[in-house]
């Protein structure tokens, strides 16, 4: 039996995932409402994915010149959280590894000191400098700057001890 779809079937096949997705999400919501443990797991998984943060960060709007304003053009009224994330993760973010290489640790620290907290958080996320996301709750910029400097320094030095053997 051929698996090829007829042109008329393709319209239906586009509708099916939509319906299925809606049913899946309804089922997920119902299960989360009925089962608090499952709801907690779901919540943890969502937080782990970082989608919530990206969404919130995007909603908060631009925090510095490095974080461009989210475009709300009528042509794209429902930009996805991924789009928002990519705005933070885009070329506007400084490269801390290049800063360390070109300007040294003091230069890196000075550059980071000029950035707002959401941008620093985006840097941490983009470069996976804190996979456990311990710093996600930190409100002091200095702590986040120190984390970035320490982790960037550590990665830049990775393997240096071995090269002396």
């Amino acid at each position, binding site marked *: 039996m051929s698996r090829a779809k007829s042109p008329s079937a393709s319209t239906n096949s586009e509708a099916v995932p939509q319906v299925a997705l809606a049913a899946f999400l309804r089922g997920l919501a119902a299960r989360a409402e009925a089962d608090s443990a499952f709801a907690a797991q779901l919540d*943890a998984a969502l937080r*782990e994915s970082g989608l919530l943060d990206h969404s919130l960060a995007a909603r908060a709007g631009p925090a510095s010149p490095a974080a461009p304003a989210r475009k709300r053009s009528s042509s794209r009224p429902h930009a996805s959280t991924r789009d928002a994330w990519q705005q933070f993760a885009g070329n506007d973010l400084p490269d801390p590894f290049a800063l360390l290489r070109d300007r040294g640790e003091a230069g890196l620290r000075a550059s980071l000191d000029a950035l707002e907290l959401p941008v620093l958080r985006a840097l941490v996320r983009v470069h996976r400098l*804190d996979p456990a996301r*311990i710093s996600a709750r930190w409100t002091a910029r200095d702590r986040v700057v120190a*984390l970035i400097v320490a982790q960037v320094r*550590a990665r830049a030095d990775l393997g240096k*001890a*071995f090269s002396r053997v």
Partner: protein
Amino acid sequence: MPTVTSIINLKGGVGKTTITLALAHFLTLEHHKRVLVIDLDPQTNATVCLIPEREWQRRDEAGLTLYQLFADAVKGTHRFDADAAIVRDVSNIAGGIKGLDLLPSSLRLIKVQDRVTQITDFETYERGPIFALRDALAEFLPYYDHILLDCPPSLGVVTLNGLAISDSYLVPVVPDILSVLGIPPILDRVEHFAQRTRRNIRALGIIISKMRAQTILHNEMERRLREDFVERRFPPVFRTVVPESTRIAEAANVLAPVNTLQQKYGNGGPMDELSALTQEFLWHVSR
């Protein structure tokens, strides 16, 4: 008496170090066991996942790694001090885990490997430093509940030193063609060594590692491995499968700021698998 388990495979990159470290962490933190990790692999990966590189370098330069043990065997000296070489309360979780200790490896082991190989008789094991590790650690092993040996991807003298103190071994495999091909030679060689040295070294099992459940090949090879066990050709295959995971890979960063197992391995997913793996390990060693 402690259980002493070598984690061994002739193939590199199959997750030996990952599994050694995960077992060590979960045994200490979830099961409150005292664990010694012995890093026999000259790549020194387990070592630098448990202590910072600089700390390893300082110790290596001071003769406080396994290099010194094998250098002594070659040179006929007696400089290795096991008590000083064992690093206590290692790992980046909460600044160090009480009861998790490490005997560090050294890149310089590569330099002495050829020499110790030359002076070893691999048929009778009656000549060469096969029991150097056993003799050096004899008084320290009873302190621990579990000793885990991260072996290099070979069955050379260094690995044999690990087997000489082991009562069991684990074989991590990636469920692909080349990794599975390497299992029978390991089983044969360990059995040969056990017979010649009159030891009982039990194959605890095969651990499927770096599993990518979305690939047909991995699923097919997992099925074959489990069938081969049923046909008694292989040791039991652990029910728990360790997935390929970014979080597990990132857990290797000893400088990452973490305070709990959950933060090191991530909530759910890998964390649950590694916890289950440890429970299964304990079940197998207790049999």
